[in-house]
Every structure is written in structure tokens, then in C-alpha cells.
């Protein structure tokens, strides 16, 4: 591979990783608050349509993005109502949400197929774009990609440096203790679900506003599921989410380029790469963490929030 091709590959990695990154961060917030949301795929599907529609009707990409985020939050809110108010099982609710969201996207979106939108376009960031190597990879992208650079830090700040974040995590770890401390874990959880849905919605909107500027259905294409898996891969930490999303996007982009440069490896094997590699990396990092733990360096940092998936009323 030529250096030029490698740079193109890395730039493509960032593009392919961005929607997954948004969704992974959203799911991290939701799960940190103790609510497992398996409906990410449905949320991304519906918000990709909402993003398109918003942009199509108003002509503004930013309003489209807002519509996408709003749709994501609304659909996640449905999940919140079913799980928080009616104490429905989070796994079923999430899966039902996926079926519902994908169906709604197809149903509402079909009449618009083929409509072009004036979404987000790539532009070079002054000065930064001229950096050797890095400029080409990171700073000739679109506004949503730049926004996604800030997101992990924002989410980290929100969760670990604000009292709201502390309460949110408490609602996910020990709702009883949070309640004893005078917080309202139910409300915190609901907010966490909404916020998470919003971010997943941004990921969906990225697909219809930046990744492609033509509306068709089926844009989510399984990316929501990948995001759900990457949350665990990321050990529920925003920083590692970046690594996960770019790793996944990168391997996908890599296998396509491997094919494009002419290889005789069967495509089924190449397509297995991202999935196998995700597990392998997880295995390796788990092995390293384990040996570190044996030497007493790290605590139980890779564990899920203690009350994840457990509805508050049934904790007792």
C-alpha cells in the first residue's frame, strides 16, 4: 500500500467510525444510568430519516441534525417510559424498539427515497488541515466529524465532573444509595435515557446528512448493534469508545481497500475481520487487565454499572 492510500484509509476510518462513535457514547450514557437500551439500531434508523426530513423541509443541515437528535430522544423516551414507568423488561423493550424504529423509518421514508439534501460538506479547517499527515486524516472532514472529536471529552466531563453525572452514575450503580442521598434516581435514569437517545440520534442523522447526501432507507445497516457491542468493549468509558469506533470503522474500510487493490482472499473471510478483531482486542486487553490485576495494579475497572438492566422497583 502506498502512503497516499494509507492516508486515504485513515481518513475513511474516521468517517466510518463517526456514526458508531456518536451511538456508542449515547449508549454509554444510558447504560451508566443503569438502563440497557438495545434499541440503538431502531433509534439510528428513525433519526436518520428525521435528520433527512428536517433538512429537507427547512433547508438547514443544523436543523436536520436537531430533528435527528430529537427523534432519537423521543424514541428513547418511549423506551424510558416502558422501562421506568411500566417497569418493562429492558431487553425486550429495546429489541421491540429496534423493530419499531426500523419499521417506522422504512414506512415513513420510502416516499422520499432518492431526494437529495444539502447536508454537511467536508471542509478543511484553516491551519490544522495543513498539518502533515494529521491534517489529511482529521481536518478535511465535515462539521459533524469535528463535533464528534469534542464529544468524548464532553461526555466524560458530564459523567465525571458534574454533580448531575455523579447522580446519573449513582442511579446506575446503586439507586438505593442515590435515593438515600436525596436524589431522584428514576428521574436521573430517564434523563440519562433521553440524553443517550439524543446522541444515538446524532449518529443516525450523521448517516443521512453527512455520510451520504441522498435519502434512502436502510442507512443504519447494523451500526446500532455494533455500537451496543462497543459500549462493553469500551468498558463504559468514553475514551475507549473512540478507540473501539475507529478500530471497527478502520477494519471495515481496510477490508474494502484490500479488495479494491485486488486480492484473492474470499470476501466472507475479509468481512469477518471487524467482528473477529473486536473480540480479539477485547480478549487481549482483558488478558492484560487480568495480569495487571493479579499484580494488584488495577481495580475492577472493566465492570458494568452494578444496577445495569435492573429496573428500580424490582431491585429489592
Amino acid at each position, binding site marked *: 500500500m502506498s502512503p497516499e492510500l494509507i492516508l486515504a484509509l485513515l481518513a475513511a476510518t474516521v468517517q466510518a467510525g463517526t456514526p458508531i462513535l456518536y451511538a456508542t457514547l449515547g449508549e454509554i450514557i444510558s447504560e451508566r444510568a443503569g438502563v440497557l437500551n438495545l434499541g440503538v439500531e431502531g433509534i439510528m434508523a428513525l433519526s436518520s430519516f428525521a435528520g433527512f426530513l428536517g433538512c429537507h423541509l427547512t433547508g438547514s443541515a443544523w436543523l436536520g441534525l436537531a430533528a435527528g437528535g430529537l427523534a432519537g430522544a423521543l424514541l428513547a423516551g418511549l423506551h424510558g417510559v416502558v422501562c421506568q414507568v411500566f417497569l418493562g423488561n429492558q431487553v425486550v423493550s429495546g429489541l421491540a424498539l429496534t423493530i419499531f424504529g426500523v419499521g417506522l423509518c*422504512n414506512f415513513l421514508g*420510502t416516499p422520499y427515497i432518492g431526494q437529495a439534501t444539502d447536508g454537511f460538506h467536508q471542509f478543511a479547517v484553516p491551519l490544522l488541515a495543513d498539518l502533515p499527515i494529521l491534517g489529511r486524516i482529521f481536518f478535511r472532514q465535515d462539521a459533524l466529524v469535528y463535533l464528534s472529536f469534542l464529544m468524548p471529552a464532553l461526555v466524560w466531563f458530564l459523567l465525571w465532573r458534574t454533580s448531575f453525572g455523579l447522580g446519573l452514575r449513582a442511579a446506575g450503580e446503586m439507586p438505593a444509595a442515590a435515593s438515600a442521598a436525596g436524589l431522584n434516581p428514576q428521574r436521573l435514569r430517564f434523563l440519562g435515557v433521553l440524553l443517550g437517545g439524543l446522541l444515538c440520534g446524532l449518529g443516525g442523522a450523521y448517516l443521512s446528512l453527512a455520510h*451520504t447526501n441522498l435519502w434512502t432507507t436502510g442507512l443504519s445497516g447494523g451500526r446500532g448493534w455494533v455500537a451496543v457491542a462497543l459500549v462493553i468493549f469500551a468498558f463504559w468509558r468514553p475514551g475507549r469508545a473512540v478507540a473501539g469506533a475507529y478500530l471497527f470503522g478502520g477494519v471495515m*474500510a481496510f477490508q*474494502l481497500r484490500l479488495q*479494491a487493490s485486488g486480492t484473492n482472499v*474470499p470476501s*466472507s473471510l475479509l468481512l469477518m475481520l471487524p467482528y473477529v478483531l473486536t473480540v480479539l482486542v477485547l480478549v487481549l486487553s482483558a488478558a492484560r487487565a487480568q495480569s495487571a490485576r493479579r499484580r494488584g495494579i488495577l481495580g475492577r475497572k472493566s465492570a458494568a454499572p452494578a444496577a445495569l438492566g435492573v429496573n428500580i422497583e424490582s431491585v429489592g
Partner: protein
Amino acid sequence: MKQRIRTFGALALTLALGLALVLAGCEKASEKAPEKVAPSAEGGPKTGELKIGFVYTSPVGEAGYSWAHDQGRKAIEKLPDVKTSFAEAVKDGTDAERVIENMARSGYDLIFTTSFGFMDPTMKVAKDFPKVKFMHCSGFKSAENVSNYFGRIYQARYLTGMVAGLMTKSNIIGYVAAFPIPEVIRGINAFTLGVRSVNPKAQVRVVWTKTWFDPALEKDAAISLLDVNADVIAQHQDSPGPQEAAQQRGKYSIGYNSDMAVFAPKAHLTAAVWNWAPLYEAIVKEVRAGTWTGNRVIWWGMDKGIVDIAPFGPMVPKAVADKVLAQKAEFVKGNDKVFVGPIKDQGGKVKIPDGVKAEDKELLGMTWFVDGVVGSVQ
């Protein structure tokens, strides 16, 4: 409470099972009766309303493979006394069998199953419903009441390949393809032969996506080809993702299924398109006249107008257009020379000897790439 739920569940299930058995019996009895009185459609001309069903593998949408078939359906619906309906997004395998069987059972006279994956289900249902006529698209099995049909879309592919070969400057042409099955491989080969007929130095690079419809992935695949210097992107996919990628990079694209110019007006050179209406109309006429028979393979080409190329984009020079249209005229005359030897495979081995025209059977089972294609056939 546990106990209650369990007993309730048990009761309900036994009830449902019992009901199933009883109803199955009744159904069988009631099903037999009308079958006997139903006028034999075989042989004699069919008068009165003709009910025709279509089974599609993907949602109809606004462009793509099923959409093209649906245009054909709409054309025959305009014929007098014809009622059509369709089932879309039907998954191959057992779901398809049920859907087709439902159609056969509800009195459809003629059923078009439009995707390769419906072959076995069609055959199975056809066995149980000998009075219903089936037309299966793109497969290789037939029976007394099942015939096969398909179009020589490879002729259109060949022409679009010529356009690509004449328009490329880098001599690398990208091809985003769905699944390595003969239908797709045949298309890639015909395209490449078209490319090579006008530009022996050009090569065609193939990327498999293993999906018929994933706009974002297809776009990424096209970008990966553009990254290795391809300057024309062709596709065997149902979404316009690759078109868009080409337009964004200021390169050219070639569409499939229907005129994709709306998606990428600046990039779209032409497209290989389906036009099923003439074939569907002819089949309906046959059924009306009572001349329809099973066990046939109907492969129509450009001479009958069921495959074509879309109008050229404004960037195609007249010289190129003329050259391609001259070849098209040959096809329209019925002079199909796409797979006439000598044709070598990727390894340089002669697969179709000099002057020999490949038989349809060979084309149907094509699993090798011609010389000039870069990529794995798996």
C-alpha cells in the same frame, strides 16, 4: 401465580394445538372442493379476471431491482380484466414458501417469483398447486407449471462497459458488487469484455459488499475503489450509494436497474436498465390464449426491449455515444456477440474457444472472471 400462568399457558397451547388440528382438517376438506370445480386453466384459453401475483425480495422503494419489476407489474395491470398484487421484502427460504403458497391458495392464476432465492420455494409450491402457473426469474429449475425467465442484462452491461472503457483516463474501473453469484459474475464479465473491446489496457476492480442494499457501505466500497485510482464506478447493487461517491469525487459512475441520473447528475454516464413490461405483457397474452406452457427458459435480450441502457449523460462525447449506439444496434438486431470466444479467464486460460458462442447453460453457471478483472471470485 407461577402455577396459574403455567396452567393458563398449558391450556392455551393445547387449545391452540387442538384448534390447529381441527381447522387443518376442515381446511383440507374445504380446500379440496373448489379445486375440483375450478375451471382447468391448462390448455384452454382463460376468460374472466386474471389474478396475478408478484413476489419481491426487497421493498419496492423508488429505484432498484424490485422497483423495476414493479414497473412491469403496473404495466400489465392496465390490461383489461387483470388484477395484480405483490408481496415485498419477502425473505428467501421458508418465508417465501409460505407467501407463495398463500397466493396460490387464494386463487391467483399466475405468480411471478422475481428473485433467485425463490427457486426452491416456487418449485415446492408448484408441486402442490398444479393448476397455478409460475414464472421464476433467474433460476434454472422448471416443471409442468413452472417456467423460467430472465433478461440478457449482460448486453446492457457490455455497452456500459464500452462507455466506461472509453471514458476512463486512469484505466482503472471500479465495480461495487453484491454477492459472488453467477448473475453478478456474468454482469462483471460482460462489462469487462465491453471495456476491453474499446480499451485493452483497462482493468476492472471488484469489491464485494455481501449485501444487496446498504447505501452507506456501498458508498464506502466505491470510495475504496476511488482511493485506488478508479475513475469510473459501476455497480451491481440496489442503492445509489456508489453513484454519490463518484459524484463527490468528481469521477464518473454507471448505474444499474433504472436510470440513476437523478442521484448523481454530474457523474452518471449511463446505466444498465431493466424494462420488464414487454415480457410480462407477452406472458399474460399467452395465458389468455391458453398457449402458455411450463418447462421453458425465456431469456430475452435487447432485441425484445427488456434490457436497455439509460440516456447518456451530457459529459459523454458524441463519438463515444455513436460507437456505443452502433453496438447497441447490433444487439437490437439480435446479433449477440458478447460471449463469443476467444475469451480467457483471469489466469489466461482459454475458457471459450475462438469463434465459439457460449451456450446459455454456461452463462447461467458462470463462476470465473474474464481476463481484465482484478479481484476474487468468492
